[in-house]
């Protein structure tokens, strides 16, 4: 059975890399004595799949991980056990049991919403007016130009800054720090929070917990 968990990352753990988060979760699951299913082979690992990795330095209130349990367990029970064992700085919001046939979380994510917080973030609103937002980066010694504009869906003012909804996932993905650089803003002055991840279904953005 697949259980999808929604969790958040607070400021104190914003500097823990994705790989380290995976390890920390494995250990939290072990402490919670969840009946995790393991992969076969030489060095068995618990079966867990994370959504789009959160860039280092960001806080978040909308991260997802699919875990596979060997025995059925109620969502309430999973939550109750994990609440006791989550490492400090990680917040657990919801658990949802899903059908075994659902596609893995990482392959279904299409969008993300980000909050850019800080005095200079009003500048980001201008992005909507541009036809192109060229972002130059170096890859394997070659300069590459990427246009960020098509990745942006909406930008709105929110408390303390702006909220950007953009493409996310393996097909097209906006990196928040790329947008900040491309617009010529100072990274050190802007805090970025990932509010949520979504998948597109029938033209609407829905929560990964609602996928079927």
């Amino acid at each position, binding site marked *: 059975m697949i259980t999808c968990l929604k969790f958040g990352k607070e400021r*104190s753990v914003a500097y823990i890399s994705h790989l380290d988060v995976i390890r920390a979760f494995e250990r*939290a*699951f*072990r402490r919670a004595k969840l009946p995790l299913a393991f992969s076969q082979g030489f060095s068995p690992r618990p079966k867990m799949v994370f959504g789009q990795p959160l860039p280092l*330095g960001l806080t978040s209130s909308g991260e997802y991980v699919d875990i596979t349990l060997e025995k059925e367990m109620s969502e309430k029970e999973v939550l109750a056990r994990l609440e006791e064992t989550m*490492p400090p700085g990680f917040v657990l919001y919801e658990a949802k049991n899903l059908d075994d046939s659902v596609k893995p979380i990482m392959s279904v994510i299409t969008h993300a919403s980000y909050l850019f917080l800080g005095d200079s973030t009003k500048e980001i609103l201008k992005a909507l007016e541009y036809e192109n937002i060229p972002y130059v980066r170096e890859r394997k010694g070659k300069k590459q130009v990427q246009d960020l504009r098509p990745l942006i869906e909406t930008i709105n003012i929110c408390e303390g800054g702006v909220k950007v909804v953009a493409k996310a996932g393996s097909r097209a993905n906006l990196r928040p720090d790329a947008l900040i650089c491309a617009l010529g803003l100072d990274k050190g002055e802007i805090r970025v929070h990932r509010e949520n991840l979504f998948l597109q279904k029938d033209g609407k953005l829905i929560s990964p917990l609602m996928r079927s």
Partner: protein
Amino acid sequence: MLTYQDLLEKHLDRIEKPGRYVGTELNSVHRQEKPKVHVALAFPDIYEVGMSHLGLKILYHIANENPNYWAERVFAPWPDMENLLVEKGLDLMTLESSTPLKDLDLVGFTLQYELSYTNILRMLRLASIPRFAKDRKNGPLVIAGGPCAFNPEPIAPFFDAIVIGDGEEVFLEILKILENETSREKRLKKIALLDGVYLPSEYSFTYNNDGTIKSINPQKKIKKAIVADLDKAYYPTSPIVPYLQTVHDRVNVEVFRGCLRGCRFCQAGMIYRPTRERSKEEITRLILESLNRTGYEEVSLTSLSTADYSGLSCLIPDLMQVLEPEKISLSLPSLRIDSFSVDLAKEIEKVKKTGLTFAPEAGTQRMRDVINKNVTEEDLLKTAEAAFQNGWHHIKLYFMIGLPGETDEDVLGIVELAKKVLEIGRRFTRRATVTVSTSSFVPKSHTPFQWCAQDHRDELKRKQFLIKDSLKGRGLKYSWHDPEISYLEGVISRGDRRLAEVIAYAEEHGARFDTWQEYFKPLVWSEAFKACGIDPDFYALRKRDKDEILPWDYLDSGVNKSFLWQEYEAALEGKTTADCRDVGCIGCGVCPSLDVAVNLRGDK
């Protein structure tokens, strides 16, 4: 005040591994109110190395059990963070609360290896704490402990007090004194009265014209502190679980302290005597409790020679019965060279099969007899055969070069041995590989080889080439240590107080992270020796006489100096000495001197 968090937020791009400075890991201790006694446990290397250290874990948690005390951690900041601290005008701070070290009651450093000493000075400097104890009129007491405290002289002038031996009980006594006394002088005076504590300022040295020591004053000896019964000793079962992958990232349970094998090069084997075992029941309890509280997927039974634990053949199957269904792997950090060890490895590697490592230490029987490594070539070949037969493809062999009286024949013996092992492996699998790793022998204090001359680094390099040139072909690999680094280690490990100026000079001129090849600066060091008028060869390459006063002679590890000399003479004659477990007391002196006994309760 800026915190590490603030720094990371503003300058994330500049810090290679921000996870080192997070400080809120699971089971880390945080206090809301200012504690009565606030101290830092300082490890003079990076987070990943320091967080693997058992002593730090024990001291951290034993102190924090008491709500009146708060022991925080601090590691050597990597140069990226160091630059940021300096640039922002910030003093070095603790990890948990970003409190400047200079505002604490005490900073305690662990002395794990000589080449971390420049990091200690760098950390003090970054903390704006005067490096020399004589210049500190207020601020925290700076103390030290750990294996290198058994020759503390090269760094003695930097410390207010140094703890010799098992530190956990002494540390609690020190905290109690800090709680009850407020003045620096009174605190130090009381700490000086504790067992195993050395106050460098109370001792002075005079020298002969040839540079050797004429006298140490006062004559009073300092006996090491010892925990007699490990079952009664505190052991942390809620250790911090780091987010970053550390060197030993797992539950570590110490199954015994001390080792009686008597390898003559090994300092740990002498200074931690006698063997004191934990009971099987206590070990099992500690493991299960730790797993529950950490969620680790691996357990390691640690000690100087875990295969020697007297109850191992019962303990392992019992543990595996519990661990295997949970997919938790068990590891033994050091295997003995016998088929029993292969059986053990077979038992524990049901979950995951990695390589096997053995340490014959020397290439010929003659040389192994000199160092008292009581292992024969037949033992090794049989063990290797058993390992290959049971499905291992990869065997790693550890050796030392530069041992006393070593000839080229002994060095080439390493190659021959490796080839024989590979040949056996080939009988079972085409994929068989043998990796040979050599370290360069560094004579250490409190060992039978404390009187020896260390091999010159050119000689060590020649021997390394000798191996490299003949250890060729498919399935053979060779790795070695930089002889320059071993030389410096050799100078400091048997150095005296006059070296403190050299270490201070080297640090001032850019030396730090000396164990890290990319940061090691041999030129800075040779300049430092020159500037201070000190000949490093005097310490590393000189053979000492029987009657010479050694810089650590005032420290009593419990093992008699006369026993060490007797062992030295036996080594030169190629005579071995048995383990006292097998033949009865061999007269090293530790049990009567410290009023403790060898405790092999694992077998009960």
